């Protein structure tokens, strides 16, 4: 079974850890410091997940979920996740988060810039476009007409398949997109950001988006 390491114990990290545990995945969770500081948080918000130091959590993980604020990314150590599949949940949205030079290049989506910096990791973009407060409630069994779709963007087909499987088991329809560049369709201001859509609706919204050409 795919082993997950969730980095970040804020709004988003523990929710992803919890739904992944529910789906039967072994999950470790880490913040930037001592696991002791997040034991209570883990006990109440993601029971079953194992609080660890980030380096230890990553070491035996198949998939690392990066759920830290984007403004902390510049000081995040790429060596920590070298050789790993990394799920980028982070968003860049200057009106709320402020301008960050590193992410201001109009030619690339934020996950492409993340991939550039984490050059020894395999980046897959997903989870960024669903609110952390919805992630729990909106899960549905496969085949349910109400099941929400989540996009999965990455350049490595095997990594995309692994992550798509996690998404499916958690309770969402995974919609693979054509490469990490197409991850721009999932960004804030894009056609599927923060919207609850079924697979056909999702595919439709993505297909007719003007962003698609750029991506």
């Amino acid at each position, binding site marked *: 079974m795919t082993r997950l390491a969730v980095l970040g114990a804020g709004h988003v990290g523990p929710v992803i850890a919890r739904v992944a545990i529910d789906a039967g995945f072994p999950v470790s969770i880490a913040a930037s410091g001592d696991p002791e500081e997040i034991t*209570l948080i883990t006990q*109440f918000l993601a029971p079953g997940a194992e609080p660890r130091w980030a380096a230890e959590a990553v070491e035996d993980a198949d998939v690392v979920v990066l759920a830290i604020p984007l403004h902390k990314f510049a000081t995040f150590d790429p060596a920590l996740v070298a050789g790993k599949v990394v799920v980028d949940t982070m968003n860049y949205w200057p009106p*709320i988060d402020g301008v960050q030079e590193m992410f201001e290049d109009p030619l690339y989506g934020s996950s492409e810039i993340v991939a550039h910096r984490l050059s020894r990791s395999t980046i897959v973009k997903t989870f960024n476009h669903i*609110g*952390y407060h919805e992630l729990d409630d909106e899960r549905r069994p496969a085949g349910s007409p109400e099941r929400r779709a989540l996009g999965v963007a990455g350049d490595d087909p095997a990594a995309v398949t692994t992550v798509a499987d996690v998404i499916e088991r958690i309770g969402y329809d995974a919609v693979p997109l054509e490469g990490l560049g197409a991850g721009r369709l999932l960004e804030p*201001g894009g056609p599927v*950001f923060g919207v609850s859509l079924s697979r056909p609706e999702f595919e439709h919204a993505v297909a007719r988006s003007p962003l698609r050409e750029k991506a």
Partner: protein
Amino acid sequence: MSAASSDAAREDRFPLVLGLDTFGDVTYDEDGRPLSHAQTIRDVVEEGVLADQVGVDYFGIGEHHTDDIPMSAADVVLGAIAARTTRIRVGSAVTVLSSDDPVRVFQRYSTLNAVSGGRAEVILGRGSSIDSFPLFGYDLADYEDLFEDKTGLFAELLKGGPVTWQGKTRPALHDQDVVPHTESGPFPAWIGVGGSPQSVVRAAHYGFSLMLAIIGGSPARFAPFSQLFQQALERFGRAPLPVGVHSPGHVAATDEKAREEFWPHYLEVIRRVSKTRGFAAPTKESFTYETGPQGALYVGSPETVAKKIAANLTSLGANRFDLKYGMGGLSHEVLMTNIELYGTQVIPRVRELLT
């Protein structure tokens, strides 16, 4: 102690508090034209005075710095309300501590506490609408550090007596007397939390009460936060502290009238917010969900709203509820009716349901 039994203990220990919060959105005249900032502020004073008269326990004002929400100096408005009332508690909802000086916040609310005869409270937040950061020259990249550092100082100030403190975000204090002194110990201070478990632990660490801001999705998902808070207090060797809930809503004579009055303005305001945040505008379906039993909005007749408050206070192990009333575009008259119904019908009904 198990989480469930600590919840039960808390309900006995702390009195039920039912308050109102406003952000002070610009009010509109009967013809749908926005009124001036000055008139809006005077309207909020009248609303606070009415809240006192109809039996509301708390009146809170949330700090904002925008053209459509001009409440940048909430404490001044609260002082005016305090001068015209004798019973209601007055405070913030929230004070954006990250972009303020904790010494000044303490001074302003300690002054409000004096003016009001001990009725002041403060609810501290990181700020989810971040208009105050550029205004006061703060960098959003320091969001977490600012709040952590300043919360620590504020906790020191609240204890009373000379303060010695050193941190990263403000000059150090050495044996500094900060005035005005409070008459009878610290005034109540809360931390507003929107979904960060680390803020819950921080509140427990410093001994602040916990105000859960539940503005979307299912309120039940916050139950673990309330349990986390009590466990963390225990871990830090502190006695249990109250837990409150802040949620938006609108009360009118009937469910239908409340929804009809609220929906167009909610749509307009959230559409604007969603544009700046990059997510999709609400739909009639999402509104129906949010106003139903599973959602976070308290929109309806006094009976509907009272039942929802009572149910959620119970499931969250909370003893306080602050209804955030108002929405840009609603008129002062409609808000006054909302306040009157909340005080005269919702509050007594919630008390009845919970005893």
